[in-house]
């Protein structure tokens, strides 16, 4: 049987009414748990996996696919509405999404996230079905030096999230890089910045930092403004739905996000967070509404959310075709597959086509169900903002700490949550951006380790970094990303300044 027939057969099975119901339940559970701040996709899948055990193989596989996509998607809702991303991949979604929500445009922001996730999930799942072998080849051609080049590119583009001050953006980034040093150095096994405290040996958990700086920092910041802000937010100004202009501004970011997210998700050291950072800065470069960035540009929600979901499907490429779990979520999924008798690996597509195509068909159905479930829910989610502040923020802190306690029920971890929450609060007061701290914590160790690996393999020869074509291209892109704006600024300075003058009058 050919690829198409297998897929068609899979879809026919997955589209049976009972299986559709399972998909819907899976998506609902995945979204419901994934939406809670502090509970990211990995924990969502780990928590809900046992729920699927009791069903027949087809049904459980479909419900499982639903949980996965639901969990990946769920994080964006609280990012947009409450500025409290529960995981690293939705940090950038909060940048623009929350600004939109505060301007009463939470509906369109959620809609572009949901439809973007659907479009990206659809294209990426089809990519998984048809071009997985090529994508895997490309991903494997990335060695330490290529990854290092990719990290350099990501670092350069991170400035897109700096906000209005280079000084404060850089400071936030360096605070993140400083935090990233904490823990055991992977290459030599030595403890750095741990001061003999065993709890620090594993470093700072990204989820803990993100939840603390965003959820707790935001809560404290809102609280300290006292009565100046109204008890309730005006949830909707204008339509809950996307306007024609919103559509026009969204579809290109969806596609770009997909094409960034899918391959990066497929890379063994890539991941949804890096894909979302790169997508955000790409959209800022391409947008015709640059001035809206930082104030609620819809492109800044559409792109990263699409990238985030496309990379969720991308992660499945090395998982299914090589048996490589590249993220914590994928590692848990691998355990899940094994109990369906699905042994991921290079032979999977050949030895077990029914199951693979069944899974891919389930993913397609789950992706569709995600849209069916979430579009009508937007109206309801937006109402979340009308919950009186005391109960809303009390609930946010409850769930934010729940996620941390569930992953590691230690007093020390909660203490870190409090300390970083206060740090996030202080940084907000002084106008520092928060996202670069998280970005520094994620990218710092990756860049360092990849550089040291690359140089160890070449026994200290630095030229090796530029000798691979892929690395050279990535370095060139990074150079252009720095140089082009500088040149443009130098040439257009007079123009911009006159515009400023004009605006002020």
């Amino acid at each position, binding site marked *: 049987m050919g690829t198409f027939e297998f897929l068609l057969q899979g879809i026919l099975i997955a589209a049976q009414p009972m299986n559709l119901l399972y998909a819907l339940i899976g998506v609902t559970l995945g979204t419901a748990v994934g939406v809670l701040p502090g509970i990211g996709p990995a924990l969502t899948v780990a928590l809900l996996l046992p729920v699927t055990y009791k069903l027949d193989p087809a049904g459980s596989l479909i419900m499982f696919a639903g949980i996965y996509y639901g969990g990946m998607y769920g994080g964006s809702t609280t990012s947009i509405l409450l500025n409290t991303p529960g995981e690293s991949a939705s940090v950038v979604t909060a940048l623009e999404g929350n600004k939109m929500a505060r301007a009463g445009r939470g509906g369109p922001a959620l809609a572009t996230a949901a439809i973007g996730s659907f479009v990206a999930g659809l294209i990426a799942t089809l990519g998984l079905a048809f071009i997985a072998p090529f994508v895997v080849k490309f991903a494997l051609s990335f060695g330490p030096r290529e990854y290092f080049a990719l990290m350099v590119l990501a670092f350069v583009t991170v400035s897109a999230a700096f906000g209005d001050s280079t000084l404060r953006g850089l400071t936030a980034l360096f605070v993140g890089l400083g935090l990233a040093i904490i823990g055991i150095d992977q290459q030599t096994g030595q403890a750095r910045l741990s001061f003999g405290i065993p709890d620090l040996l594993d470093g700072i958990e990204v989820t803990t930092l993100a939840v603390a700086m965003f959820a707790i920092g935001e809560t404290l910041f809102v609280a300290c403004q006292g009565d100046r802000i109204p008890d309730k937010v005006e949830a909707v100004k204008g339509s809950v739905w996307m306007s024609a202009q919103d559509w026009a501004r969204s579809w290109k970011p969806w596609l770009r996000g997909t094409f960034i997210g899918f391959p990066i998700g497929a890379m063994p050291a890539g991941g949804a967070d890096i894909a979302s950072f790169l997508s955000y800065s790409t959209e800022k470069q391409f947008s015709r509404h640059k001035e809206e960035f930082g104030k609620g540009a819809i492109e800044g929600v559409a792109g990263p959310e699409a990238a985030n979901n496309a990379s969720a499907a991308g992660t499945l490429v090395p998982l299914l075709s090589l048996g*490589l779990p590249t993220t914590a979520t994928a590692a848990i999924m691998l355990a899940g597959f094994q109990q369906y008798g699905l042994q991921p690996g290079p032979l999977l597509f050949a030895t077990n086509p029914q199951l693979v195509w069944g899974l891919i068909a389930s993913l397609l159905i789950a992706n569709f169900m995600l849209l069916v479930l979430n579009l009508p829910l937007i109206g309801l989610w937006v109402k979340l903002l009308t919950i009186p502040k005391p109960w809303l923020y009390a609930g946010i802190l409850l769930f934010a700490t729940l996620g941390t306690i569930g992953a590691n029920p*230690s007093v020390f971890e909660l203490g870190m949550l409090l300390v970083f929450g206060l740090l996030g609060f202080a940084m907000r007061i002084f106008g520092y951006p928060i996202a670069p701290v998280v970005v520094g914590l994620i990218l710092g160790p990756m860049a360092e380790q990849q550089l040291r690996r690359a140089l160890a393999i070449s026994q200290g020869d630095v030229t090796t970094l530029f000798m691979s074509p892929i690395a050279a291209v990535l370095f060139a892109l990074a150079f252009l990303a720095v140089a082009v704006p500088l040149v443009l600024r130098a040439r257009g300075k007079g123009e911009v300044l006159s515009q400023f003058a004009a605006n002020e009058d």
Partner: protein
Amino acid sequence: MKHFFLASLIAGAMALPALAADYTIIAPAGPGGGWDQTARSIQTVLQDEKISGSVQVVNVPGAGGTIGLAQFASQNSGNPNALIVGGYVMVGAILTNQSPVSLKDVTPIARLTGEYEAIVVPAASPIQNMEDLIKALKADPGAVSWAGGSAGGTDHITAGLIAKAAGVDPTKINYVAYAGGGEALAAILGNQVTAGISGYGEFEAQVKAGTLRLIAISSAERVEGIDAPTIKEGGLDVVVQNWRMIAAAPGLSAEQVTAINADIEKMVNSEGWKTILKTKGWQNTYLAGDAFKAQLDEDVAATESILKDIGLVK
């Protein structure tokens, strides 16, 4: 959603009736990892086989299990209902992290499962067998890059032991540490490094597909179902088993230890445990009592000496 709540209530209520000894098992790792899966498998079997009425799993992750170990040893002295899962990784972590609490501070019950280290090269590599690899290593240790898990872990220790046995200075090995098995595997498949070293399970699918060449395995004798010579056959006396164990609290009476031993033995011999080993692909290397204690002492001594040789422990 209402049914969801209801179902959860019922599920909670069904876990109620208490029969024999209740256990609380500490999994000194986060949810999803190997030790957590071991703890939860033990929980399932103890409950399903009615060996214990109610079993709770508590995750205390961090620092190679040493945080969980320290907390377990200090809070449960004399408590016959507390158990902890652990493994060989802990032996190394206790040494490299200079943990004040060691395996001497708990009561080891039994080794349950184990996995051997596999040494692989990319299929296209000119290295055909262990002898070729040793030759290359002796010629220029820097030119042989090894991909494996974090520095000081089981993979690094095995690489160090191989170098030492081959007469090469263990501090001179070019060991490239990767975060997880997956990332290291990608580096080997992508021809980025000379050789890879990790638990056999990480490589199994690739070896069977012919994209990696398995040149040696770290067991004492050949393992059924794995088509590879041992490192011993390659001329080096290196045997490493990455085992997982269960231990009880310190300060127990002989009767209490015997009772726990009996429960664990019953579990290991049950059908449920055998099924789980099969689905998870775990090797049964059950070893209890004094034999396990002697093996443990031997492992601790050997690990300490090689970590000193590599320079990770002073």
